[in-house]
């Protein structure tokens, strides 16, 4: 479960996120949309502890990310928009590295890594250094690393960037499966069809404020009010 209560983030005089309140219950797949610079990545970075909120509180699986960061981080997984990895490590080494950070015992870690290598079809290049990987390979490794410790919530920023159709399908299926298994997912994306396909609920942020938040079913009614396209709804609610 992810809960944001009146969260604000200011950079000097600029307010990136403005009194944002949002709850993603257990097992919900939440799509987080918005134009460039709307505050999506800032919000995500606050949820995972990379940014400190200026005010408000963020609870991740009932842990406050500011006051109980270790417990909160232990229970979530984060996949950034650009999957920067340690270039000199191989994919397998990176997975072991992450496993160590999450204190997963070596005996179970080994089996889990084998399982994920198989699931993400990364066995052919897992023992090459990540500096030789394509964007899609890096993304798959990053998502595999995020799932190592069986998180209760996944925060994922633009997961489909740079993925070939096969990789995109693997990622979509994986996220859908995780959601079915009761994992809360907050996914930021620019892809409206992906959001429509995967998400139970969709929120749109603009200028740091949540300007739209509805379930997939409600979205169909909203679409009907325009020309039947989600794109038209998006453009209308994010109009300056």
């Amino acid at each position, binding site marked *: 479960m992810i809960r944001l209560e009146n969260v604000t983030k200011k950079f000097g005089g600029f307010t990136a996120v403005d009194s944002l309140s949002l709850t993603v219950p257990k097992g919900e797949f939440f799509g987080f949309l918005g134009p460039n610079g709307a505050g999506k990545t800032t919000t995500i970075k606050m949820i995972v502890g990379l940014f400190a909120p200026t005010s408000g509180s963020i609870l991740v699986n009932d842990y406050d990310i500011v006051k109980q960061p*270790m417990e909160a981080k232990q229970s979530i997984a984060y996949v950034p928009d650009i999957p920067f990895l340690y270039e000199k490590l191989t994919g397998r080494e990176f997975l072991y*590295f992450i496993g160590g950070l999450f204190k997963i015992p070596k005996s179970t870690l080994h089996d889990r890594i084998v399982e994920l290598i198989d699931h993400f079809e990364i066995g052919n290049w897992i023992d090459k250094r990540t500096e030789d990987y394509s964007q899609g390979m890096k993304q798959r490794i990053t998502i595999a690393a995020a799932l190592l410790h069986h998180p209760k919530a996944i925060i994922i920023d633009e997961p489909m960037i740079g993925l070939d159709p096969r990789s995109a399908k693997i990622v979509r299926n994986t996220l859908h499966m995780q959601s079915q298994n009761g994992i809360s997912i907050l996914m930021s994306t620019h892809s409206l069809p992906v959001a429509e396909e995967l998400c139970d609920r969709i929120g749109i942020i603009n200028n740091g404020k949540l300007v739209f938040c509805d379930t997939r079913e409600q979205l169909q009614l909203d679409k009907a009010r325009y020309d039947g396209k989600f794109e038209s709804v998006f453009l209308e609610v994010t109009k300056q």
Partner: protein
Amino acid sequence: MFFHILHYKLLSFFKTAFDKRSVSIVRGVASSLVFCGFAYGAYTFAFSSTRFMLGHIRTGLYLFHTFISMLLFVLFVAVNLGNIIVSYSTLYRSSEVGFLLTKPVSFTTIFIMKFFDNFFYSSTTLFVVAFMALLGYGSYFGYPWYFFVGVMLFILIPFMFLSACLAVLILMAIMKIAGRIGFRKVMAGLFALYFFFIYLFFDSSNPITMVEKVNRYYPNVDAYLSHAAPGYLQYLPNQWVAQFFFHIARGEVMNALPYAGILLSFTLAAFGLLLLVANRFYYRSWLVSLDVQSATRKIYDPAHRHFMDFQSRSLFPSQIEVLIKKEFFTFFREASQWIHLVVMIILTGLFAISVSNINLNLHIMDVQMLTYSVMFVFGGFMVSSLTLRFVFPMIGLEGQTFWVLRSSPIKDNKIFLTKFILGFVLVLPIAEYIAIASNIPFISKTELRSLLLWFGVFNAFWISLTMVSFNLGFGGFFANYLERNPIRAASTQGATLTFLATLLYLIVIVVIILVPVSAYFAALFQFKIFHVKMLLIAGILLAVISFILSALGFIVGLRSMHRDF
């Protein structure tokens, strides 16, 4: 085209340099103050040293300029080695080069731009130090203002420029040969040859032997005693500069000018040759560098395990274990890191071997005192350089991958402490080795044999602790997570400021130890009473100052890790 690119590079530079945000202004003012303080310190040190050597202990003009020649040799080697290593990154691994190569810009234009970028970027601090040292030296002789401007423009900058030109010529030769026999073999062969010649130089121009030879002509020690020096020295640029200064000091301008002429001619010739070689070979050598990089790409066999392998068991808790292993692999799989470390360890070894073999026959308190202080400062300088190069960038080099650690359930102080311990484990043995080696000449013939040695070992511990924590902490404070090149990360404005601060710390330490050590030498050579308590008080003072600065490094570093990422 060259000026078009230069225009935009300067525009970008000035926009960054004259950032009007309050934080940047405060940082800029603080930087300027530290720079001014350091420049003044360099001036005072040069002036006092010149007055002490020529006025107080009367070494004579010839011997004094021979010492200057040796210092210039060190400067020449430092610029040369620095440019070989940095140029590899800027000329062959820079993304800017890759970008410009896809545009209608000639290879020579790209080369010249990157070469000058590299030279001025990495040598700015050396220019300031060289100019202030020149000012201090020249003030002793009362030279007019135009002497300083002229010497800087036509002697010192060309001297450093010649060194940089030779460095890039060597680098292109390395790339050429590496294409045929492999990068590692070429580097190993070249560095072995390079260090062999450095060793030969210091071995054949032993300062103590020089002092003994020149003192045979006492009191005529201001004369031109070139026969006291090995003949090959006249072919070295450092000797041309030193001879220029010597003749100017004797008022023999006409004898000095030919040396300036030789230096300028060789510099121009080296630059011309560099352009010629670059025009024919830069692009081809750039392609070779791609082959060299791809040759390092390999598939690791997970079944082939060693003790540092991630799959191997460890005595450490899992978070510490993976942090150590990650640091190990990211360091030793990056050629510019381990090659530079090997170079610095060899240089340190050469220094330590040279100083431990010095036979101090002159039982004069001032000479012993001066030699001890110079060795102490030089040893401290080496530790300071080592920490700047390898410890300062440790946090910044996490780069944009820092999200991995920052979003993981690991405490910031654990990350910081692991990096600190790794840095300390690297620096402490080297610092202790330098301390022991540089104390050997002073303990071999005295009754108080081990006292000075233990004092040196104690100092080395505290100096290492301070240098590592200070560099790590301020490395975090000034971290630029977009800079992936460790050499450039260690040459930024923040790095320079940190380096200057550690040099100020060294000066304070020298002042603290000077009192008991001079009393120690006075006891040895002037039979005065020496109280061990003096060393003890100096040691406590040194430990307290070091502890405070180490704590400051820790606080600054830890706070920097809490910043938004």
